[in-house]
C-alpha cells in the first residue's frame, strides 16, 4: 500500500465504522474490497493489518455497533474473509477473538440482520474466501458453521443458496486435497471431519422428500465431480450411488435435469471413464426412462464424450434422432429411403404425443435441432451421424414450417399445423441447415436444400429474423461449395440458383422493413467478398455476368440514400465490394435527364465521398472509411488513378468529422497509405532488400516526406494526437512513432536540419496544439491535395515537430485506461471521504 493510501485509510475506516455516516453507493464498498483483494495478492495480509491497525479497529468497531447497516456488516464479513485467507492473519484475528463474533454462533447469525440476504451473502462469501487453509476448516467445523451452510443451501435468495452450494463444494474438495491415499470406504476414520459431516448430509438430502434439497445435493455433486478428478470421488460415488439410483428409478422426472448434469459431469471425469463403471449403467437407464427433453440433453452430452462405451453412445444417438425420425415418417409413408432409426429399436409413442401437442412440439424440436447442430460442428465425432436422412429430416421440418410438406399421417397433419409460421423452429432448423454445409456436397445442395432455402428467401411470410437465418444458411452453403475442388461442376449447376437468388435479393432490397433490407445487403457483401477472395473459385467472370445482368447492383446503389442509417452503411459496404467485381462505373456511366440529355452519373468514389461529407449519421460515414481502406489496401482502380489526391481529400474531410470511429478509420487509412508510400519508395516492407547507400536513402526519405507533405498527412496525424478521444489519440501516436522510426534517422536528418534544431527538448500536447494553431493561422486556403507553399510549415518543420514531441511518453499515458486516475485506490478513498455528508444534498438519483 502506498503512503498516500496509508494516510487516507484511517479516516476512511472511521467513516465506514460509524453508523451515522451512510455510504449510499454499494459500489464504493465493492471497489474497496477489490482493492484489498489485489493488495493481498502482492503483500502479506498480516503485514497489512499490522501496519494499518485501523483495519482491525474497523472490524472491532462494526462488531460493537448496536445497529450496523446490512451493507456495512456484509462488507466487513467479506473484508475479513480476504484477510483471513492467509493463515497467519487468520491466527492474528483469531487471537483477538474476532472470528467467532463474525462467523461463529455469536455473530450475525443470531442477530435480526441475518434476515437480510446481503448479510447472509456476505457471510458465505467471507467464509469461502477464508477457507484456504486447514485452520479455517477446523474453525468452521468447531463453530457450527457447516450446519449454517447446510441451511443456507435452501436459502430463499438464489444467490445465497448457490453461493452456499459452491462453498460446500470448495470445503469438500479443499479438505480432501491432502487426502493422498484412496480410502477403502466412506466410514474410514481417515476422512477429514468436514467430509464426515458433509457426506452423511448429502446422503440424507438425497433420500429426503424435498425436491429442492435433492436438487441442491445433486448440483453439489455435479460441481464436485466436475472440478475434482481425484480418486476419492470414486469412493464418494460408491457411497452415494444407491440413493441416486433410487432417485433415477423412482423420481426420474422431478430430478431429471439435475441427474443429467450429474451424469455428464461424472462422464467427463477420467475417474469414471472405464466401461465397467456403474455410471454407464445408470446413464443407460436414464436414457431409457427420462422424459425426451431430459434424455436429449444427456444424449447430446454423451455423444460429445471421447471415452464412452459404444453401446451407450449408440443408445444416445437413437434417443437424439428419434424426434427427427418421427418428423421424417410423418411426412413420407413409406419412406423413399432408409429412415434415421431402425423401427424395431424405437418406441416412438411418447415422442409422437409430444410432437402432436402445440406447446411441447416446438420445444422438443428446437432442443433436438440445437443439440444436433452442436454435434455437426464437432471436429471429433465419435459416431457416424446419418447425414443424408438427417438432412432430409431437417428439410422436412422446414417444409412443414412453410406448408410445403405433405403430411402422410395424422401426426404429420398435426405437426404441419403446429409448425406453419412457428419462427422458433424455423430459426433452429435454418441454423442446423447451415451447419450441414460442412458435411455435404453440392449434389445434395442442388436437391431439396437449395429449393427450401429459396422458398424461405422468397416467402412473404418469412419473418425478418428467419430471413436473416436463411441468408446465413445460404451463405454457408455457397461459401462451402465455392471452396470445393469441383467448382466448375458446381458452377454449372449453381448458375441457375444464383439467377433465382438475385431475383429474390432484388425484392428483399426493396422491402419496407429495414431489417430485411439490411440483412440482404449484409448477405450480398459477404457473398461477393468471399467469392472475390476465394482463389479456388475460378468462375468469377461468370458470377460477375450473372450479378451485373441482375438489378441487384442498381438497387444496392439506390439504398445509399435509404432513410435508415444502418441500411445506408450496409449499402456503402456492399457497393465497396460490388465495385471491385462489377466495375460499375463503366457499366452505368450516365442517365438521361428530362430533356433527353445525358447527365454524367457520379462515380462511386464521388458518391461515397459525398456520404462522408454530408451524412448526418456516423454509421454510413464509418462504412465509407472502411471501404476506402479496403480500396487503398487492395489497389482499387479508382483509387490508383490518383492515390495522393484521394487520400488527401479523404483526410481533410475526416479531420473535421466529429465521430471518433470515422477518425480512427481515417487514421487506419493514413497508416495504410504511409506504409504503401514507404514501401513503394523502398524504405520499408521487405526485409530482404539489399542495403542502400546513405545518399539513396536520403533521396527516398525526401521523396516520401514530400508525398506526406502534399497530402497533409502530418497535419492530420498531429491533429488526431490532440483529439480528446483516447482511441483516436492512441492510434495517431502509434502511427507517428512508426513514422518517426523511419523518417527521423539521425544520419538522414543531418542535411535537412539546422544546428539549433539538432537536440530539441521534448514537448507535450499543449506545445503541439499551439504549434498547430500557429500553422493554421498562417495557412492560406488552397486547393485540396496541393500543399500550401506560403504556410509556415515545410517538411523540415514537420520533422522537427516529429522529433520534438514526446511520443513515447504520450504513448505510455495513452495506453493506460482513460479513467485510471479516477479509478485508483487513492481516488476511491478520497471519494468515500468526500461523499460523507453530501448524501442529503444529492439524494440517490438515477436516470
Amino acid at each position, binding site marked *: 500500500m502506498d503512503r498516500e493510501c496509508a494516510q487516507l485509510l484511517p479516516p476512511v475506516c472511521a467513516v465506514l465504522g460509524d453508523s451515522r455516516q451512510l455510504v449510499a*453507493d*454499494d*459500489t*464504493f464498498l*465493492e*471497489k474497496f474490497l477489490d482493492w484489498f483483494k489485489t493488495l493481498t495478492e502482492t503483500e502479506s495480509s498480516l503485514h497489512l493489518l499490522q501496519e494499518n491497525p485501523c483495519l482491525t479497529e474497523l472490524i472491532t468497531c462494526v462488531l460493537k455497533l448496536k445497529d450496523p447497516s446490512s451493507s456495512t456488516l456484509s462488507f466487513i464479513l467479506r473484508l475479513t474473509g480476504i484477510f483471513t485467507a492467509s493463515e497467519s492473519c487468520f491466527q492474528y484475528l483469531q487471537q483477538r477473538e474476532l472470528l467467532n463474533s463474525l462467523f461463529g454462533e455469536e455473530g450475525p447469525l443470531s442477530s435480526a440482520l441475518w434476515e*437480510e*440476504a*446481503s448479510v447472509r451473502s456476505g457471510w458465505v462469501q467471507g467464509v469461502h474466501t477464508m477457507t484456504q487453509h486447514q485452520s479455517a476448516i477446523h474453525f468452521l467445523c468447531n463453530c457450527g458453521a457447516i450446519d449454517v451452510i447446510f441451511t443456507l443451501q435452501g436459502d*430463499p*435468495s*438464489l*444467490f*445465497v443458496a*448457490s453461493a452456499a452450494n459452491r462453498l460446500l463444494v470448495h470445503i469438500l474438495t479443499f479438505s480432501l486435497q491432502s487426502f493422498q491415499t484412496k480410502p477403502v470406504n466412506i466410514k474410514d476414520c481417515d476422512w477429514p471431519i468436514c467430509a464426515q459431516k458433509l457426506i452423511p448430509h448429502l446422503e440424507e438430502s438425497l433420500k429426503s422428500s424435498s425436491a429442492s434439497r435433492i436438487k441442491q445435493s445433486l448440483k453439489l455433486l455435479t460441481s464436485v465431480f466436475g472440478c475434482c478428478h481425484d480418486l476419492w470421488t470414486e469412493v464418494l460415488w460408491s457411497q452415494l450411488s444407491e440413493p441416486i439410483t433410487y432417485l433415477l428409478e423412482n423420481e426420474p422426472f422431478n430430478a431429471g*435435469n439435475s441427474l443429467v448434469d450429474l451424469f455428464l459431469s461424472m462422464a467427463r471425469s477420467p475417474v469414471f471413464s472405464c466401461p465397467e463403471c456403474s455410471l454407464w449403467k445408470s446413464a443407460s437407464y436414464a436414457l431409457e426412462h427420462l422424459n425426451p427433453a431430459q434424455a436429449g*440433453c444427456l444424449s447430446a452430452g454423451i455423444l460429445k464424450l471421447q471415452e464412452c462405451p459404444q453401446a451407450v453412445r449408440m443408445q444416445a444417438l437413437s434417443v437424439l434422432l428419434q424426434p427427427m425420425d418421427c418428423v421424417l415418417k410423418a411426412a413420407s409413408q413409406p419412406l423413399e429411403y432408409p429412415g434415421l432409426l431402425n423401427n424395431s429399436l424405437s418406441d416412438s409413442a411418447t415422442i409422437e404425443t409430444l410432437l402432436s401437442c*402445440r406447446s411441447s412440439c416446438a*420445444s422438443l424440436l*428446437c*432442443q433436438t435441432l*440445437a443439440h444436433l447442430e452442436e454435434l455437426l460442428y464437432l471436429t471429433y465425432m465419435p459416431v457416424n451421424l446419418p447425414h443424408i436422412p438427417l438432412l432430409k429430416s431437417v428439410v422436412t421440418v422446414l417444409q412443414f414450417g412453410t406448408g410445403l410438406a405433405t403430411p402422410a399421417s395424422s401426426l404429420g397433419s398435426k405437426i404441419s399445423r403446429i409448425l406453419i409460421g412457428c419462427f*422458433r423452429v424455423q*430459426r433452429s432448423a435454418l441454423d442446423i441447415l447451415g451447419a450441414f454445409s460442412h458435411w455435404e456436397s453440392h449434389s445434395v445442395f442442388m436437391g431439396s436444400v437449395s429449393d427450401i432455402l429459396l422458398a424461405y428467401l422468397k416467402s412473404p411470410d418469412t419473418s*425478418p*429474423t428467419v430471413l*436473416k437465418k436463411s441468408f446465413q444458411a445460404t451463405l454457408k452453403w455457397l461459401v462451402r461449395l465455392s471452396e470445393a475442388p469441383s467448382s466448375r461442376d458446381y458452377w454449372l449447376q449453381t448458375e441457375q440458383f444464383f439467377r433465382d437468388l438475385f431475383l429474390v435479393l432484388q425484392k428483399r432490397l426493396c422491402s419496407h422493413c429495414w*431489417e430485411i433490407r*439490411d*440483412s440482404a445487403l449484409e448477405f450480398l457483401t459477404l457473398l461477393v467478398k468471399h467469392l472475390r477472395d476465394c482463389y479456388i473459385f475460378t468462375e468469377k467472370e461468370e458470377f460477375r455476368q450473372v450479378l451485373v445482368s441482375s438489378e441487384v447492383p442498381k438497387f444496392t446503389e439506390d439504398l445509399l440514400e435509404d432513410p435508415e442509417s*444502418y441500411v445506408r452503411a450496409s449499402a456503402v459496404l456492399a457497393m465497396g465490394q460490388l465495385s471491385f467485381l462489377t466495375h460499375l462505373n463503366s457499366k452505368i456511366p450516365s442517365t438521361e435527364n428530362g430533356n433527353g440529355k445525358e447527365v454524367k452519373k457520379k462515380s462511386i468514389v464521388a458518391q461515397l465521398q459525398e456520404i462522408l461529407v454530408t451524412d*448526418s*449519421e456516423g*454509421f454510413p460515414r*464509418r462504412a465509407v472509411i472502411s471501404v476506402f481502406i479496403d480500396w487503398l489496401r487492395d489497389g482499387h482502380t479508382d483509387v490508383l488513378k490518383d492515390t495522393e489526391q484521394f487520400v488527401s481529400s479523404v483526410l481533410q474531410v475526416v479531420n473535421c468529422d*466529429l*465521430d*471518433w470511429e470515422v477518425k480512427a478509420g481515417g487514421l487506419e487509412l493514413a497508416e495504410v497509405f504511409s506504409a504503401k508510400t514507404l514501401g513503394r519508395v523502398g524504405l520499408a516492407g521487405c526485409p530482404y532488400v539489399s542495403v542502400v547507400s546513405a545518399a539513396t536513402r536520403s533521396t527516398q526519405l525526401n521523396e516520401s516526406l514530400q508525398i506526406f507533405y502534399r497530402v497533409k498527412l502530418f497535419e492530420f496525424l498531429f491533429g488526431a494526437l490532440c483529439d*480528446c*478521444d*483516447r*482511441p483516436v489519440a492512441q492510434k495517431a501516436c502509434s502511427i507517428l512513432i512508426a513514422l518517426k522510426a523511419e523518417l527521423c534517422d539521425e544520419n538522414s536528418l543531418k542535411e535537412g536540419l539546422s544546428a539549433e534544431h539538432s537536440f530539441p527538448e521534448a514537448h507535450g500536447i499543449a506545445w503541439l496544439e499551439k504549434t498547430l494553431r500557429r500553422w493554421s493561422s498562417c495557412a492560406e486556403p488552397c486547393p485540396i491535395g496541393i500543399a500550401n507553399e506560403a504556410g509556415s510549415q515545410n517538411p523540415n518543420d514537420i520533422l522537427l515537430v516529429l522529433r520534438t514531441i514526446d511520443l513515447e511518453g504520450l504513448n505510455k*499515458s495513452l495506453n493506460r485506461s*482513460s*479513467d485510471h*486516475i*479516477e479509478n485508483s485506490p*487513492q*481516488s*476511491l478513498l*478520497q*471519494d468515500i471521504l*468526500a*461523499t460523507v455528508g*453530501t448524501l442529503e444534498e444529492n*439524494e*440517490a*438519483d*438515477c*436516470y
Partner: protein
Amino acid sequence: MPEIKVTPLGAGQDVGRSCILVSIAGKNVMLDCGMHMGYNDDRRFPDFSYITQNGRLTDFLDCVIISHFHLDHCGALPYFSEMVGYDGPIYMTHPTKAICPILLEDYRKITVDKKGETNFFTSQMIKDCMKKVVAVHLHQTVQVDDELEIKAYYAGHVLGAAMFQIRVGSESVVYTGDYNMTPDRHLGAAWIDKCRPDLLISESTYATTIRDSKRCRERDFLKKVHETVERGGKVLIPVFALGRAQELCILLETFWERMNLKAPIYFSMGLTEKANHYYKLFITWTNQKIRKTFVQRNMFEFKHIKAFDRAFADNPGPMVVFATPGMLHAGQSLQIFRKWAGNEKNMVIMPGYCVQGTVGHKILSGQRKLEMEGRQILEVKMQVEYMSFSAHADAKGIMQLIRQAEPRSVLLVHGEAKKMEFLKQKIEQEFHVNCYMPANGETTTLFTSPNIPVDISLGLLKRETAIGLVPDSKKPKLMHGTLIMKDNSFRLVSPEQALKELGLGEHQLRFTCRVHIQDPRKEHEMVLRVYNHLKGILKDYSVQHLPDGSIMVESILIQATAQSEDQGTKVLLVSWTYQDEELGSYLTSLLKKGLPPTTT
C-alpha cells in the same frame, strides 16, 4: 394452485440495473435488461447464470421486454442477445427501438475510450441485437405466442417509455418500468386503464418523496445559466446523447427566444439533428402542447443551438455547451471541463446522477482539487451545480397509478430498501392488497385464482333465464348444470343433456336419517304431532300429511316406525334427495330437538 413468480436479477431493492424475471402460467418473461454504469467489469451486467442453469436461454425465456431506452434498462441487451446467446423475441416500443442504439453506441464509446474494446459488445452486435427487436405500438395487443400476449401503455418517463401488461389466459402482470405521473415540457403523464392485474410491478425511486414541481427546477436552471452568461461566464452541461439533453435544449431555446439573448449555445457531436429527427418521427409520443404547435413550429428545430467544434472552447466570451458524455467520464465534456474549470465565472451543471469513478462524481461530492495525468492538480474554481431532472413518479404518483390499475397485489422494484418498506406499508394500509419488495435473487411467489372459461349450452341458458330474472350483463349469476371436461374444453350443460351425451343411465341417491323420539303414544298420534309441529314452524313450505301416514315436506319424506324393543321410543325416518340436502339436514336437526310438550 396456479402461481406467478417474480425474481429480480437487478432492481430488487436497488436502482442499479433493472432485470426482472417473471414466470406466469408457465411462460417466462424477462422485464428489462439493464446495465450498472458504476462497474467496469462483468458486475455491470445482471447475473444471467440463474437463467442459463435452466437450460438453453432461448428455450427457457419466452420473450424479453424493454421498457425504455435508458441504459439501466437496456444496456445489457446486446450482451445478452449476442454474447450470452439469447436468440428469442425482444419487444420494445418504436421510439425505444430507434433510440436504443444511439445510447448503446454512446456508452460503447466510453468503454472503448477507457479500456479498449475488451469483453464488450461491438457496433455490429448492437445492430444485430436491434434487428431481433419487434417494435410495438401503444395499446396494441401483441401475441407473443398462442397463449402469451403483451400490451404497452404510455409511461411518460422519456420518449417511448412504456408500461407493459403481460397476460396469459386470465392471469396478468403489469410492469411499469420507470414512469412519471405528471406531464412535463415535452412528454405527457403515464396512463393505464383499470386492467386489474394479478400483480403490478412498480418502480419506487421516489417512494418516500413528494417532489416539488419541475417548473421550479426549470426556473432555477434557467436563472443559473442566465446569471453565468450575463457575467460573461461559460456554462458546461454534460449530457448523454439523447433524452434529458433535448428537454433542456427546448428549455434554453424558448428562454433565449423570450429574453432575446445572444450568447451562443452549442451542442456537441451533431446530436441535435439526430434528436430532431427522432422527436419529429415520434411526435405522437410527446405531449399535447408539442403535438398541437407542431404544425406552426417544431419545438425540436432549434434556432439558437448550433453544432460545437472543439476549437470553440477557447473562444472568449460567454457560451453554453451541451457535451457528451454525461458524467464527465472522458472525451469532449471532460476536455471542455478541464479548460474551463479554473475560472470562477464559469459553471458546470450536472443534470443527472454520476457514478463513482467519474470526474462528475468527484465534483458533486465537493472535491475541488482533482488529480490529472502526470500528477498535475486541476483546481476547480468554476461553480458546480447539481440539478436532478429525472422524471419518476413520486409517492403520490405511485399511489395514483395503483388506484388507476386496481391490482390484486403490488411488487416494488427500482428503489432503496428503506424507502420501499415505507411505501409498502402505505400501499397495504390504503389498498388492502399484499405488497412485496424482493431483494435481488429472491423469488416472490403469488398464488392466483384464474378464471376458467366455460361454454354453456343454449338449452341450459334458456331454461335458467326462463325461471329467473332478466339477465343483467354486469351482474354475475349462479348457474346450475353438469360440467363436462373433455378435449381440453369445459362445457356446462343440463344434467339430462350430460347423461344423453355421455350415454349414462340416471340413478337417484336418497339419504335417510333415523331420528329417535320418546313418545309413548301410538304411531299415528305421534305422526300427527310431528305434522302439526312442522306445519307450525315451516309456514312457507308445503307440508302434507299423506294418506299412508307419512309426512312430505316439499320433497322430503318422513315416516314413523315403532322400535320393537321399546314401545316408548319411536323412530322417524327422514329421507331426501341430494338436491334437498339443506332442507333435509334442517328438518333432521329440528326433529332431533324433540317435539314440544302437548297442552291438554
